[in-house]
Structures are given as C-alpha cells and as structure tokens.
C-alpha cells in the first residue's frame, strides 16, 4: 500500500496500463510536454513518446471522434477533455456515436475507450471551469459513467475502465485531485464498474452520493453521529451508469430514510433517478420523504468566492438536511 492523492492515483493507473498494453494511448489538449493542465500525464511523453501521448488541436469533437475510430480499429484510447465544461462540443461523438457503436452494429463493432473528464466546482472555476456534466451521460444507454471519490477507487476503476470494451466516461473531481489522499496498492488492481460501495455504516438513514460530495457527506455523518447520535449510512455510487440500485435499495429498505447529496443541479439529474428508483422500489419501507441536497438550480457556478461558497453544497448544509430528515 502507498499513500497517494486522487491525481496520483489517476496517473498511476494510466502509467501502469500504458506499460502493460501497447494498444493503450492517450490524446487530448496539452497532455504531452505540458503533462496535462493538472499534470495527470506528467512525464508520460518522455516515457511513452509522442505517438502514444498525442497533443491534439483544440477541437473536442474530433478528440472523441478520433478516439472512437481508433477504438473501433483495435486500440484503447484514453481521451482527455481538459475540463468537463468543454465536453459539450464532443457530445455528438460521445452520446450519439460512441455510445451506440456496439448497439447500432448489433455487436459487430465495439468502442473500448475512456474519456477522462476533470470536472466539478469549488475551485474558483466560475461558469466554465466548474460544471458537473454527468446527467446527460448517465441518461445515455451504451455509455458507462464512473465518478470515483477516493484514490483507491480512482486507480482501480480507471484500470477497469481502460480494459473495458465499452466507452467509459471517467469523471475526476478536480477538487479531490490534491485534497483527497488515501491508501492504494502500488501495483495494478481493478475495481468493478457498476458497483456502489457503502463507505459508512449506519441505521438511521441512507445518504446516497458520489464524487467530492462523498467527503462532505462523510464529514457531515461523522458530526451528526457525534453531536446528535444520528447514524447515517453513506453510499458512494462510484459508477453513475449503470447505477447500482441494488445496493441503494438494500440500504434504504434497512434505514427507511434516504437523503441524496450531489453537486450537480437538481433537475433531471442522477439524484432525481436515485430518488425515483427509491420512490418506486422501496416505497413501502420508507418512513419519510426522499430528500435531496443540491446546489440551487442555477448555472454552475459563480466565480466570486462568497457566491461560490454559498452555491456549493457543504457539510453544514448536509448536516442540516440530515437533522431535518431524522426529525421527521
């Protein structure tokens, strides 16, 4: 075991897979000599050469489209979208094309590729370096969407993603890159895509969350346990598509209360889906409304610091929601 942050975990996973499998290569903006704007590929062009670490022109649709073509022709591309906010020009190639390469050919072609997307806010990124982009991706049949929160999960899930035979969008929360440290094996290992994990046990309610919000939720849960004696179970979804509804439902049926915490705006989001699944399939075990903590329904997110802080869900806001729900 080694201690590392999320960024190091991502880098480690890619380096190991690049060394193991010559069909893995990377493409994106500034990933070469610059090492990526977050340094996720620091040292890669030196180790793997310009062929396998390709600095592309500034053109996201082609980054994903070219990755798709290469994947179909047997390579395992890791495409980087520099910030989640810039994935929109690539939506057509991602949601319209890559997601349907297998389905639309009735299984004769496949697109085993990873699209890495640093995303999320609380980093003074303003309206265009803070977005959460998972809703439309989670909506799309044919994609897999992974959103790890810890170094252990980031590394194991990214290795799984690179080996996966379907397109995986890998959402890395920028704020966790250096903030979140933890233990992870030095060598190679995989974590299964499609499985949530209970990161804290509790019987009074179930908190369903992912990404940066896992950490805020764990902080909140620890505090209400101490000060109010409320024991919240905290589920880290880890994969947003396919959703591990089993783990969520099993927990909610046990605790009878559900609180969903997400950084994305509320409407038609991953959290909406989790709530809908609970309201359908755990209804008779619920003894309170399914609550959500989200930012306001405004474009993520203001640049000025006080507004940004007010916009983001925080441990305090989660604590308040836990207390309110527990009191019902």
């Amino acid at each position, binding site marked *: 075991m080694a201690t590392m942050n999320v960024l190091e975990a991502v880098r480690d996973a890619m380096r190991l897979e690049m060394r193991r499998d010559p*069909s893995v*290569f990377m493409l994106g903006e500034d990933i070469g000599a610059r090492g990526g704007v977050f340094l996720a590929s620091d040292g890669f062009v030196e180790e793997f050469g310009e*062929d*396998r670490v390709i600095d*592309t*022109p500034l*053109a996201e*649709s*082609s980054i*994903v*489209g*070219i*990755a*798709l*073509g*290469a*994947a*179909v*022709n*047997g*390579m395992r*591309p890791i495409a980087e979208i520099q910030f989640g906010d810039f994935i929109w*020009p690539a939506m*057509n*190639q991602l949601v*319209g*094309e890559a997601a*349907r*390469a*297998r*389905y*639309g*050919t*009735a*299984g*004769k*072609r*496949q697109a085993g590729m990873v699209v890495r997307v640093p995303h999320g806010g609380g980093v003074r990124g303003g309206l265009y370096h803070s977005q959460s982009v998972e809703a439309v991706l989670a909506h799309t*049949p*044919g994609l*897999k969407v992974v959103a790890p929160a810890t170094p252990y999960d980031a590394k194991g899930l990214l290795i799984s993603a690179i080996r*996966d*035979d*379907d397109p995986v969008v890998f959402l890395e929360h920028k704020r966790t890159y250096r903030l979140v440290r933890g233990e992870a094996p030095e060598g190679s290992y995989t974590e299964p895509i499609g499985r949530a994990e209970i990161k804290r046990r509790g019987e009074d309610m179930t908190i369903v969350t992912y990404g940066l919000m896992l950490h805020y939720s764990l902080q909140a849960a620890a505090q209400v346990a101490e000060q109010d004696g409320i024991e919240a179970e905290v589920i880290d979804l880890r994969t947003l598509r396919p959703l591990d509804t089993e783990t969520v439902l099993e927990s909610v049926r046990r605790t009878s209360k559900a609180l969903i915490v997400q950084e994305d705006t509320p409407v038609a989001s991953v959290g909406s889906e989790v709530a809908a699944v609970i309201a359908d399939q755990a209804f008779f075990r619920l003894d309170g409304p399914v609550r959500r903590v989200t930012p306001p329904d405004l474009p993520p997110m203001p640049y000025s610091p006080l507004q940004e802080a007010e916009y983001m869900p925080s441990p305090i806001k989660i604590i308040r929601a836990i207390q309110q729900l527990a009191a019902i």
Partner: protein
Amino acid sequence: MPEGSGAAGLPEGLDASDAVAMYRTMVLSRMLDERVWMMNRQGKAAIAASAQGHEAAQVASVKALDPSRDHFLIYYRQFTAMLALGATPVEMLSGFLAKSGEPMSGARQFPLHGSHPRVDLFSFSNVVGTQLPQAVGVALADRLRGDSGRVTMVYFGDGAASQGDCHEAMNFAGIHRLPVLFFCENNGYATSVPLRRQMAIASAAERAAAYGFPGVSVDGRDMFAVYEATKKAADSIRAGGGPVLIEARVDRLLPHTTDDDHTRYRSPDDIGQMRDRDPVNLTEQTLKRRGLLDEQTDRAIKYEARRTVIDATDKAEALPYPDTEDMHDHLYAEPGRAL
C-alpha cells in the same frame, strides 16, 4: 474520359474484364435501386436514399482500393459501393425491408447503417459528418500499430463538408499526414440546399489546401477518371504521402430520399440536364464505343441483373422480421437485459 496507357486506352491497373465487371455492378445497382424505390411506393420499405447518379463514382473508387486491407467508412447513399464491396442483393434488400438477417445492424438501423460482417466497412449513424473524425481515428490506429500500406477511405457528401467535424478531421489528418482518403460525392445538393448556399467556393476540393494536403476534383460520372484519380491518391497515401481529398462531381438523379420531392426546389431544366449525363448510360456508351462491350454482353448483363433483382426480392420478402427480444442484445459487452 482520360486515355490511359492500358488496353483500349484503359487506365493503368484496369483491363477490359474489369471495366465490364464495373459496368455490371453499376447496372445491378441501378436496377436494384429502382426496385427499392418501388418497394417504398408499395409501402414495403419505409425509407430509401438512392445512389442513382452516383454509381460510376462509387464503383470506380471502390475498384481503386483494396478491400482486403483498406477500411471503408460509408454513408447512406453508398448503395453501389456496398455492392461493389461484396454485399449481396439480398443483404441490401433485407436492410430496406428491415428484415431478420440484415447484416449491418440486424435491422436496428436505417438501411446501410451498421457494420458489415465480411467487409471492413461501417457507418455508425445517420448524423451527417460524424464518420470523418472516426475515419481519422481508424487511420491513426493503423499508424500507431505500424500497420502501414492501408488506406482509410471515407465517403461523404457535399453537405457533410459544412460540418465542423469535417474541418476537425481534415485538420488532424493533415497535421499527422495520416493515410486517409477523403472522398466527397458532390451532387450539388444537401437535400434541397444547392451548393451556392453551402459554400462560397467552386469546388469542395479547394478545402484541402487549408489542411496542407492535395485536393482533386474529378468528373464523377466518368468511371475511368474516378478510377485514375482514386488510384493515384491511394498509391500516394499508401506510400506515406499523407491524406488526399477527392471531390467527385456527380448528380443525384432522384429526390433526396423517398420522402422528398425535388421538383419543389429543382427546375425542370436542371432535372432534365442531369438525366442526359446519367453515368450508367454514359458508361455503356463509352464501353461500347471503345469496343469493350458488345450488345450481346450488355443484354446478358441486364438480363442477369433483372433476374438477380427478382430473385433477391423474393428472398428478402420471405424473410421474417427480427425477434422483438433481440433488441435487448449488445448494449454492452456484458450480456444482460436493461430494465
């Protein structure tokens, strides 16, 4: 038509039997295509886009490539190209009728969309222009593997040339000098929008200069001219010369699809003139004039094509529709049904 150095003035690389075989494919394509249109009018085929007018460009461009090692990314109008590449008439019709056994997508998609099981050919979607970056990626994969000597052939229309994806694809291919042949079938219309409303230049081939590689415009009704231009481009690409853009000037003899009525936006003159340069007729005349095709062979070819169409129609119509349960397959590599 260019007077090449081969037999009877044929372009190098083609002999008389090739020329006749290409003509045979064109005739078959035309008759089968007419049948498809008829099946639409009979309510049997929900929609069809016709290759009529594009046959020479398609058959000759395929001929100039090597399906045993080249990759083909096609679009919906490549009916003749698919036949030339080895798709059978029954396969083609099964697509239009959306029948079981349809080879490209299992009839999940519109005709000609999906991937062919025997040919390295695919068309993921109807979204115009998306194939262009994908083709660049296919070529990049070859390059990265050191798999040289392969050409990635990507077909697109003049309409597709307006898409941002076309620019991004050509730009990347130019920078990395990738082995991509960009083949634009310019029929002067994106559905109803004429070329002058699509670009402010005379020929789509001029675009290549913006990406640092050669662009060629060729009369797409002339099978030999297309063959020569494509062969030359493919040779250069194979030799590591980087991408080439070919514009084949063709006519779309029929409306955009069976849903369209082109008299709404084309003048009778315009429609009449293009009928006079029908590539199937032109090819027939040229081959006969050059002594490569006699009347008897021509009659046999047409007879055979007619028989093939009738036979394929019977077979395709007899096929059942795909099982409803099948639609759940192949969403992901892992088997398992979505909710």
